[in-house]
Each structure stands twice: as C-alpha cells, then as structure tokens.
C-alpha cells in the first residue's frame, strides 16, 4: 500500500514539473580535442531522465529548461556538466580519459556498478584494444594485458585452443580455466574438435572479436561469488556492442589481411643423414635411418654431385594468410537501439592444407516496451570449419618428419612409383603424404541467443530476467589412411557432438537512498543452469579398399558409441550493499547452491563473501590535491565449487577395447572407481587492494594482494592398479596461491596534437601444493606431478645422477649415468609482465606491446628425441669430449673420451637434459593506425576512415628455449600435458593490414 502511495505521489510530482517548466530547444555539437565529432555521447539534463545522444556527426538536439545543467558523458571521455542559460548553439569539447573515475563496469550477473564503488579487483580491456591485436581468438588478445591472468595458446594451427588461468592453478586435475560469460550468460569454453592427436579448438574462438564492446576480468572470488561454482576460478565477462539511443544508422566496414610466417625451432644444419659420420642416403631400403649423425653437408658429394642441403621446414611450411571482413551497423530511436554485425574470417595455416573459417553473425535489439519495461534480444550465430592435421607424438603426425628430417633427404615425391610412401626412416610417415592422408575436418554450428527483460516497477526496484542458451553442434571427421611404415590399418572416425546449455537468472534489486549520505541496496536472485552434452561416434578401422572414399562404409570394422551427459545446478543468492557518501562501501554476498554431480546428501552447499571499499581521497582531497583518487579495499570470500564432471559417483562397466571380438561382445569394469562421498571443494580468499590516481588522473596505480586457499580439491587421482582400478575422483588435497598484481597507467604527454600513454602490469603468484590424498607426497597429473610443498606442475622423470657433492656421475664408458626419476623442473613461471606504449600524433597512432614471462620450465620433447637423432642445434658440436663429472665407481674425475653422438644419444634417456627455462620477452604487437583527417573524409561518402598496419610476434627473445615459441602447450588447453612442447604446429610472425570505413 505504502509503495503504491509513493508511486502515485512521484507520478503526480513529475507531471507537475512537466507542466510548469519552460523549455528551450538547444542544438549542439560534441567534438574531441582534435575537433572531430564524437558520436554516441549522452546528453542528459541533470536530475531528470530527459536525455539524448549525439549522432554520427556529433550533433544533438535537446529541449531543456533554462537554468538546467547538462551532463555530458561518453565512454572514454571525461564527463562534463554545462550550465544551460538558453544558448541556442553550443559546441562541447570533450577530453579523453582513460581512467574515468565514474567509469561504469559490468560486474557479476551483468550488473553495472561504478568502478569507484567496487570492493574488489577487476580489470577491463576495451573492444578497441582487443581488435587491435588482430587475434582471431579474443582470449589471446588478453595475453599480457591483464594482471593476474595467464593465457597459454596451444599451438600455431589455425583455430587452436588457448588456456586462461586467473590467479594461479586452483585445481589438481579439474578444470583450471576461468568462466566465460557473454552479456550475463555463461558460455561453454571447452576444448573440442580434437578428434585425432594434438590440441583442439576452444569454443571461445567462436566469439567474433568485432562484436565485443569490452571484456572485464573478475579476478578474486569476492567479485565472482555471485556466479557460483564455476566462478571460483575467475570470470571473463564479455559485453557485446550496442546501438545508441537516437543514433542514425552508422555502418562500419573493415577489411583485414594477414600474412603469417612460421617461427621455426632451432635445428642443426651442418650434418647429413647417417650414423657415426657415415652417410646414409635415406632412399635405398638398407639406407633408411632416423639418425642424422652423418658427415658434413657442405663437403659431402655422391657421385661427384653435392648432396641436397635444404631445410625441410623451409620446404614444408607456407606463408599463412588470413582474410577478415566485417560489416556492422548500429543505431537507435528514442525507444529502441540495435547493433548488427557479420564477419567472415578465412585463415590458411602455415602448415599446407590446414585452414580455419568462421562466419559470425550477431544481432542485438533492445526496445523500451513501456517506460518501465525494456526487453533486449540478441542472437549470435557462428559457423566454423577447420581442416587440421594431428600434432604431437602420434606416429601418424606429419611434423615428426619435418622437424627431425635430414637436410640431405628429399621428401618429395611423397610416394614412390609403386604407390608406397617415400620415407627416410621406418615407423613414421612422409610428412607430405600425412598432409593428404591424415587429417581432421571440423564443422561447428553455434547459436547463442539471449533475452533480457528489465522491469522497473518503481524507481528503487529493478527486476531482471535473463534467459540465455549456448547451443552448438560439432561434426568432426578424422581420417587416417592405412600406412605401411607406421603399421596402421587406417581409421575413419566420424563424431557428432550436440551440446546445449541453458541459463536462467531472475534477479530483483532494490536500491534506496536513506537520507543524504547513505544508499542501501539489496539484490536477490535465482539461477538455474543446465547442460546436455551428447556425442555419437562411428569409428571404422581397416578396409579402405576404395581410394579417396571417406565413408565409413569403406572400412572393415565399425564401432559406434553413444555418450551423453547431463548436468544441472540450482542456486539462490543475495547481495546486500551499503554505501556511505560514495566513500565507504560495504558489500556482502551469499549463495546457496545445489549441484547434480554430487549424491543427495552432499548436494547442497552455502558460501559467501564480505568486502569493503574506502575512498580515502575524499577525506584528504583538500590537503592532497595531487591525489585525484585513492581507494583501499579488502574482501574475504569463500566459494564452493563442483569442479567434477557428471557420473563420478558410481562405478560402471564399459565395452572392452577391441570388442566385439570374434563376434562376441565383451565388457570390463571401468578403470574409474566411483566415489559416492564426493562433496564440493572450497576456495577461500583474502584480497587487499589499493587504487590510486595522481595528478588529475595522469598517473594511475593499482595494487592487489591476494591469498587464495583451495581445499578439499576434487581430484582425479591415479590409483595403484593393484587396487583393481586406475583412477578415482576424491576430495583430496589443498593448495594455495598467493600473489601480487600491479597495474600502472601513465600519460606522460597529453596535448592537443600529441599524447603518449603507457601501461605496465605485473603479476607474481606463489603457488604451493600443501596437501595430497592420504598423506601422499606426490600425485601425477597427466605429464606432470604435484608434490607437497612445491608449485603445481613438477616434471618428474629420469635426470642426471649426482653424488653428495653435486658432481655429475659418469659411468665407465664416459657417459652420464641415467639417474632415477627426480624433480627436474616446474612449469610455474616466477612472474609475468606486460608493457604497452601508445603514441598519438594528430591522426597517427603507434602502439607497441611487450610481454614477458620469467621462468616456467618447458619439456622440449622435440629436443629430447632429437638428441637421439642428432637434429637439435646443440648437436652441431659433435667433437669428441670428456664429460665433466666423476666416475660412478671410482669417484675420480672422468677422463674417458666419448663421441658427440654417444653423448647426445645418452642424453635422450636423461629427461633433465631437455628441460628448458621458458623465460621470454615478446614484442607481441606493434600497431600503426592512420585516421584520415575529416577534411578528406568529408569529400567521400564516409564519415570516418582509417588504415592500420599491425605486426604480431615480431620479436621473441627466449634465451633458453630452442623450440618455436615458449608459450606453446602442445597438447591443448587441458591439464594433461602442461609445459610439454612436442611436435606442435609453430606459431607465427604475422603482418596484418586493416582498412576500416564508417559511413
């Protein structure tokens, strides 16, 4: 009752004002410091809801009462307030502002908050900064830009997956990657399409970077607690572009062209194929060998002719090309706005035949149905195709015989006259033959519809309902022809994956001003989330009697499998906030969650957070005018997490490998032991942050410290097989991440014609595994191990053998003794940093971005195998040598001379010799943009035009790493093979040219 009365009162007051005020029409124009018009600027009459925005010429018209104050706000500019005294004409000049204090950021559940009032750490990257990097996968565009975030790409093959980890590894074996949310709806970022060996495609690459308005990274769990379980690992919030109110249609067309040059690993180029200095030609049947320990190439002649001397990588890799065309339009009326975009990306990889193509269409329409009811519909459709080649150590993969092929061998023609493969060694395919005969075709179709309804029954209450879905189907077909050298009978694997994910949020937010100084708000909501993942696979082996006929009917044995998984989660949450004078903010969150992956008794769990922010600069602003802004914040949070896949609670029987056999079906108990006692894991985090701005925001410094404890980790452990099982999920172990993040923004020069900005960010995280199941001190996770007391990701394999004095032990033959399995390296970097510089002179902008990683070991498996073959760069030194160390039997210094070949072939068994420090400095991006001056553009049909030249990975300094790129995770974005570099597609040095036209 009381509420209705208030509303009535309010409405009558409003109508009273409407009748009484005398308004005048004002025509104005908004320009920037370079006098270019700024479209999309919001002009609002202070204290009212009346407002408009500028059109594409920067012009606006507004009816305002005399004496009113106009509030001019625009993203990226400092806002202004201008008194209106009845002027007929007005030109408003906006100053750019990279660090607007009133900046509004999108936080959890799509709720917008003033950055000033946030009680936790977030970092935003604008859409412009993302498109500037020219990365087809927007996730890669964040690399090095956001503190606390580590992004690792998996390979250089087009469309390959990337891994994003925020504030350190938090799970032993489960998902470690951040949650991705687009316009308030979580989307799937699984790695799919890896039908065959090597990395797959991460589904984030379906999101066209051109539709992204901004990406905001929520790092701490206080920030993400409202999102629930999956957000314990941090959240990447993607906000797509909008049209503006009262905006004339504005079209943008951009076209891009990139050239990619593969970055080769370092190999020796001095010696020919052969053994102990004797040349083997690799052609005759008794002259085939994997060894490249032959004679020098430069002096080697056969029959008076010099032998071939061509780097097999030069011959094999091609210049990759990427074309991207994007057309978008945005606009709006007083009641509605829209944004539509279509783009087509066509990428040809540096490995011949590989490609990736993406059609992305996006439309968003928002309409004010009633004054207090707004509906927004958006629809994203993405169609992708990729043609990929397997990577890694599968014997069928082509890169084996590119990276380790002798310079003296001619790989072409790929087949002999009799149709058999032409190989220089047995057991591996000819790389060109493999390109044509071993491949994976992936076709994806994805829909991401979102509907958002906003209902504001009173001025203090907002009810939001958001329905979103993420639906994709992916067909992949892996083809592996029968190979005599590798001894395979051929595989055809046709896989069809249907995935659906639904998300529903119903949120009510009440906000009330109590007196002049205090504002309170209360948010309550409900979330229902469900996924359905279905996979059908038909696998045919053998046969292949009809040539070039890629149909399952052409195979001898077929096995079909069906697999579907359902997952559901229901949550209720609340967030009360109290704000005093926009100076002191206190916020709490609470969430109750029920997850279907646990047994009934353990299904429900609660958690929450408390956080506060104190804008201390408010208190001392008179005494310290140089301090534009200063805020101290602290938060403590606890988040539950159901980081385990469905069906881990029970043990089942599976069809046995190679069955049906002799026409009889066969089953075995699955190696995964079910555990009905599983419960949620917990992340507890303390975060303290300081945000400051100095000298009228010319210098900004943000600093965070966090201490995250992860306990009851849902871990997929390896069991001793004598238990009868291979693996089980258990709540085992704990680890912590403690770290600091620093972000510095400086604008050393800011004048009408020239400005210089630089941004530096730094992250240092200390990760430690503190406890493992049953008091164990180590557990294996894929290729690496977790040891109690060490950072996650230890390489544990045979190393050198040392005596107590730390001297290397040498055996009687003069070679290093192969030591036992031991800790020989760790994947965790010491720190990460990024430095961006941006110079703008009139219409010219130059920016360059360096990023750096200190430490983080890589197992260079290519070199390890190569030691045996004689292909890594170091094996160029083949002199006889006396290996430094002491004899294992006598304890006397070693004096036995060994050949270079014997030495390196021994190192092949000593994994420690292939561990390389992954430190790097990269000039990741250089971008030069020229905006055509208005006076030229005016004469064209266009409103704005620009050209941009961008270089990526122009310079990489990796002093200890001899592979292509120390950033690569050869086996995809999962946990299985972290830090392993092996036969992966090389990353590229790219040159990109872009023309962008707005009309």
């Amino acid at each position, binding site marked *: 009752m009381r509420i209705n009365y208030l509303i009535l009162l309010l409405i009558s007051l409003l109508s009273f004002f409407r009748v009484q005020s005398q308004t005048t029409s004002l025509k104005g124009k908004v320009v920037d410091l370079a006098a270019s018009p700024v479209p999309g600027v919001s002009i609002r009459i202070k204290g009212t809801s009346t407002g408009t925005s500028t059109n594409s010429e920067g012009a606006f018209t507004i009816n305002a009462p005399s004496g009113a104050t106009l509030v001019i706000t625009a993203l990226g500019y400092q806002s202004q307030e201008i008194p209106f005294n009845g002027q007929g004409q007005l030109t408003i000049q906006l100053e750019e502002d990279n660090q607007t204090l009133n900046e509004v950021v999108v936080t959890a559940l799509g709720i917008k908050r003033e950055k000033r009032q946030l009680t936790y750490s977030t970092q935003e990257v604008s859409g412009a900064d993302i498109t500037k990097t020219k990365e087809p996968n927007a996730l890669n565009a964040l690399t090095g830009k956001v503190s606390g975030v580590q992004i690792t790409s998996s390979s250089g093959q087009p469309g390959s997956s990337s891994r994003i980890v925020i504030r350190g590894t938090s799970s032993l074996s489960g998902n470690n990657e951040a949650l991705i949310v687009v316009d308030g709806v979580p989307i799937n970022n699984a790695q799919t399409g890896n039908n065959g060996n090597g990395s797959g495609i991460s589904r984030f690459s379906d999101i066209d970077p051109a539709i992204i308005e901004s990406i905001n990274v929520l790092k701490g769990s206080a920030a993400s607690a409202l999102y629930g379980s999956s957000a314990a690992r941090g959240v990447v919030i993607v906000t797509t572009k909008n049209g503006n109110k009262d905006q004339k249609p504005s079209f943008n067309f951009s076209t891009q062209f990139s050239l990619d040059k593969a970055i080769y690993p370092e190999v020796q180029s001095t010696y020919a194929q052969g*053994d*102990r200095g004797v040349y083997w030609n690799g052609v005759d*049947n*008794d002259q*085939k*060998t994997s*060894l490249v320990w032959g004679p020098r190439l430069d002096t080697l002649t056969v029959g008076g002719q010099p032998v071939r001397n061509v780097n097999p990588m030069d011959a094999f890799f091609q210049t990759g090309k990427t074309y991207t065309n994007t057309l978008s339009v945005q606009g709006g009326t007083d009641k509605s706005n829209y944004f539509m975009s279509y783009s087509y990306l066509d990428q040809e990889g540096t490995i011949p035949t590989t490609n990736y193509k993406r059609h992305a269409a996006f439309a968003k329409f928002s309409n004010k149905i009633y004054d207090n009811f707004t509906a927004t519909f958006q629809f994203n459709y993405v169609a992708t195709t990729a043609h990929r080649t397997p990577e890694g150590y599968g014997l069928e993969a082509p890169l084996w015989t590119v990276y380790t092929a002798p310079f003296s061998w001619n790989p072409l023609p790929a087949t002999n006259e009799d149709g058999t493969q032409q190989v220089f060694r*047995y*057991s591996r395919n000819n790389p060109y033959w493999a390109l044509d005969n071993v491949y994976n075709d992936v076709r994806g179709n994805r829909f991401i519809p979102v509907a958002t309804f906003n*209902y504001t029954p009173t001025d203090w209450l907002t009810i939001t309902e958001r329905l979103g879905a993420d639906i994709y189907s992916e067909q992949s077909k892996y083809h592996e022809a029968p190979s*005599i*050298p*590798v*001894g395979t009978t051929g595989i055809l694997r046709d896989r069809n994956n249907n995935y659906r994910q639904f998300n529903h949020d*119903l949120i009510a937010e009440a906000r009330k001003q109590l007196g002049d100084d205090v504002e309170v708000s209360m948010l309550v909501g409900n979330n*229902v989330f469900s996924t359905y993942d279905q996979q059908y696979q038909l696998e045919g*082996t053998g*046969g292949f009697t009809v040539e070039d006929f890629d149909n399952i009917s052409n195979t*001898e*044995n077929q096995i079909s499998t*069906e*697999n*579907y*998984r359902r997952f*559901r*989660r*229901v949550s209720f949450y609340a967030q009360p906030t109290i704000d005093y004078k926009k100076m002191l903010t206190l916020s709490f969150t609470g969430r109750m969650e*029920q*997850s*279907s992956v646990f047994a*009934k008794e353990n*299904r429900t769990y609660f958690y929450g957070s408390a956080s506060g922010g104190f804008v201390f600069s408010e208190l001392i602003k008179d005494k310290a005018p140089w301090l534009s802004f200063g805020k101290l914040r602290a938060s403590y949070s606890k988040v539950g997490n159901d980081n385990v896949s*469905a*069906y881990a*609670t*029970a*043990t*089942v*029987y*599976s069809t046995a490998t*190679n*069955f049906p*056999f*002799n026409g009889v079906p*066969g*089953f*075995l*108990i699955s*190696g995964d032991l079910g555990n009905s006692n599983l419960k949620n894991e917990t992340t507890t985090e303390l975060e303290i942050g300081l945000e400051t701005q100095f000298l009228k925001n010319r210098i900004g410094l943000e600093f965070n410290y966090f201490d995250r404890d992860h306990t009851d980790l849902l871990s997929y452990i*390896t069991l*001793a*097989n*004598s*238990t*009868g*099982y*291979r693996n089980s999920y258990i709540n085992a172990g704990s680890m912590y991440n403690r770290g600091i993040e620093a972000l510095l923004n400086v604008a050393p020069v800011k004048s009408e014609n020239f400005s210089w900005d630089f941004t530096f960010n730094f992250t240092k995280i200390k990760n430690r595994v503190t406890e493992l199941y*049953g008091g164990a001190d180590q557990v294996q996770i894929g290729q690496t191990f977790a040891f109690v007391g060490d950072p996650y990701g230890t390489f544990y394999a045979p190393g050198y053998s040392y005596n107590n004095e730390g001297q290397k032990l040498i055996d009687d033959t003069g070679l290093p003794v192969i030591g036992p399995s031991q800790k020989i390296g760790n994947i965790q970097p010491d720190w990460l940093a990024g430095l961006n510089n941006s110079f703008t002179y009139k219409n010219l902008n130059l920016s360059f971005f360096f990023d750096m990683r200190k430490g983080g070991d890589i197992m260079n498996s290519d070199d390890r195998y190569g030691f045996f073959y004689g292909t890594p760069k170091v094996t160029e030194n083949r002199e006889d040598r006396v290996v430094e160390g002491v004899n294992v039997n006598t304890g006397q210094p070693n004096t036995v001379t060994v050949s270079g070949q014997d030495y390196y*072939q021994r190192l092949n*068994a000593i994994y420690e010799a292939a561990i390389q420090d992954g430190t790097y400095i990269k000039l990741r991006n250089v971008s030069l943009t020229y905006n055509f001056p208005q006076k030229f553009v005016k004469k064209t049909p266009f409103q704005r035009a620009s050209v941009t030249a961008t270089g990526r990975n122009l310079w990489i300094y990796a002093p200890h790493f001899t592979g292509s790129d120390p950033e690569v995770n050869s086996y995809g974005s999962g946990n299985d093979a972290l830090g392993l570099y092996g036969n992966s597609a090389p990353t590229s040095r790219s040159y990109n040219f872009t023309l962008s036209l707005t009309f």
Partner: protein
Amino acid sequence: MKKSISYILLSAALMFSSCEKFLDVNENPNEPSLVQESLLLPAIEYNLVHNVVAGWASINAAHFMQLIALNQAPPNVGTYLLNPADLNDTWRYTYTDCLENLRLMKKQADEKGNTIYSGIASVLTAYTIAYTTDMWGDVPYSQGLNATETFTPAYDSQEAVYTTIQTLLDEGIASFQAAGGTPPGNRDFFYQGNTAQWIRAAYTLKARYYMHLTKAPNHTAAAQAQLALSALENGMQSNSDDLRLVYDGTAGKENRWYRNFLPVETIILSSKTVDSLVNRNDPRIAQLITRSKQNNAYLGRVIGSAGIGSLESYSLGGSFYASANSPLYLINYREALLLKAEASLILSGVEAAAPFYRQAIEADMAHIGVSSDTAIASYLASRGNINGDNALSYIMEEKAVVNFLSSEIFNDWRRTGYPALSRVQNAVSDIPRKMLYPLNELTNNPQPQHSGDALTKRVWWDAQ
C-alpha cells in the same frame, strides 16, 4: 504489478518443489552398472592373452632371453635398459582388466551358482597371479583388489602367492567337477565351456607351477617333480587340449605377436633365435620364422650391435605364431610332455625322460604341420639322443621352441640356466632376472619390496 509478483512467487515455489527431481540426473546413461558373467569372460580372456601373456613384460622377457632384437642403437631394452614406467601397461592389464574383473565375475558366478564360470575364474586368477609373481616376485594379492578398503595394499610374499595358486587351481577343478548353472558356450574363447578340457588344463598348470619351485628355498626338486608328475596324470592329452586364443585377424584384431613385428615396433628376430634354428636344421624353421624381405635369407640381428640395419634385411616371427590370425597360447600339450620329461629326469634319470622328450618334439612337428616323417626323423637323428650331460639343456631348448616367444622361457632359464645365455654386447647390466616394479606402484603404493629393486634381483624361487 501484483499479478506479476504473484506469478513470480508461484514459479519460484514450483521451482523449489521440483528442485530435487530436477537435480536427479546423475545416473550414468552411457554405461551399465552391472553386466553378467557371459559379457565379462570374453573380455577377460582376450586381455589376459593379448595384453598380459603377450604384453610388454613378456616382450621385455623375450628381449632378455635374446629371442628378439630391436633394430635400434643401444642402449635399449635388448641391452637391459628399462624404466619402471615401461612396466605400467602390463601391471595395469594384469590387475584392472584381469584380476579385478575375474574377482567380480567369480563373485557373481558364485552367487548364481554358475560353477563353470566360477571355475574358469579360479583357474585364470591362478594363471594371472602366477604370471605376475614370476615376473615381479612379491606382489599384491590378498590385500589388493579391495579399493573400497585400501588404496595401498601390502604385498604378499611369493611363497604365499604360490600356495594361493595351487589352492585356486584346486578350487577351479572342484567347480568344474560340480558343473552347474549356465554354461558359457562360445563366450569361453578357450574351451567353449568344455569342463573336461578345463580340468586337464588346470592340472597341467598345477604341474607347471610345481616345477617352478624346483630350486625354491625349502623345496626340493624331487618333491616338486613328484607333485608335477602326479598332477600331469590328469593333464593335457593331446594337441587339441591347448589353452589358446584364436584371433580372427581382421583389422585391429590381429594376433599380438603379429602386431609386435610390424615395422613401427622395430622388433625383429635376434641372431640367437635364427642361428639356433638354422644350425639345428630344424624343419619347423619355415613356419617359425620368415626369411628377410630384402635378401630372402634367414638373418637375425646381433643384439646390442651398433648402428641400425634395414628392417627388411632381418627375419621376423613366422606364419605359425605371428600371422594376423595365429592363435596365441597360454599353455600347451607339448609343454606338458616336456614337464613330464624334466620331472622324470629329476626323479628317474635320462631313460625315463627320453620318451617324453621325443613325444614332445613329434607332437610339436605335428602341431606346426611338419608332416614329413623323414624330416622329423632326420631332425631327431641329427639332434641325437639325450644323455646325462645334455638332457636338461636339450629339454629346455626344445621347450623354448614349443613355447616359441613365450615368457615361460624366462622362467625356465632362471630355474635351469637353459637355453644357455651370455650377456649381450654393450649390456648395461647382467642378464635381468625379474621385471622392475612399475612406476604406477612406486608412485601410488610405496611398499618395502620396492627398495633396491633391480632387474638383476632374484625372485624367491630363483634361489642361487
């Protein structure tokens, strides 16, 4: 307004009430939670043969026994270089695919009174743990295969395991004699549920495992030979009693030794295998080994030699044991005869042994398809009769032929020293006498037996 709020409240209430049901979706729809014995047995038999009997531990043993060679530069497994991780596969197949499934199958069969399944489970469990203990020594059994109770089972002594083996075989025989419940029929790849054959196989296995203990501490060769001979009275009667798996040879379903000799494995025959068959003019040679593709000659590689030759210049496993559709043997009638020969030699001397020795060779010739009596006669003549000096070595040499490529050769060599071997060139140690405990156990179930583990260590029955 009021209406919409009540709608929201209503839907929230509905959501609450249907919540529990909504969340009950964690039952695995993809795989069954129970399958009957007839579905487990075929998969167990296949894995026991394909991945244990002819798996990596047996391949390693074939290297140690100098039967096969790697066409790779040393050091490698041929020169006794092995990592614990190399044994993970066999251990895993042994315990998870075979022993745990045998346990589950037996439990179900006993509950239902399907005694033939129960008997097969007992006999194959005995076979599997015997394989395991012969390879590794002390192994987990009585405390293992109990994952709900312990993830770190203690190991049994080999002596205790050997007691269990005989008990299990006796239990198996008793079950077959009871013969009730559903018969396995074609789900039993080995004998199609023929209990008489299973009983003969169980007795032959008893004899094999008695003989394994001829030099074990607190055992005497004579007593073991006596036990073996009495067991063999009920043992295999003919070549058709062989315990073996028949492969159909289609893509992916080829005999394991066929796959082992594919070029990708770079496994070829050793000079020792090839030369001994050539030197003895063994008429079985054409079936046992191939001529090299390149030169159409019998040529084996000298293990440990430097450099790498052309794969196609060497002999490989021949058509009889290493074709795509060759059967693979767990124990056979010829072995039963040679066990008799050895036991008789121990108890009664060469005269008693000679007829069994001769029968074994004849049976093997017949088995392999050497039909010419003259060829058999001339082989026997050129080999000459066994005598007091050479009897044991001749019996074991023939046993290595009738058990071609089998890991039983490794057991016999450790027991008897025959066929005689010397260290290969470039060896990194003495000739191995056991397998290393696998990395999987070292990491996840550390036990006192792991300390000082080495290939050259001796298992309990391999007393010096």
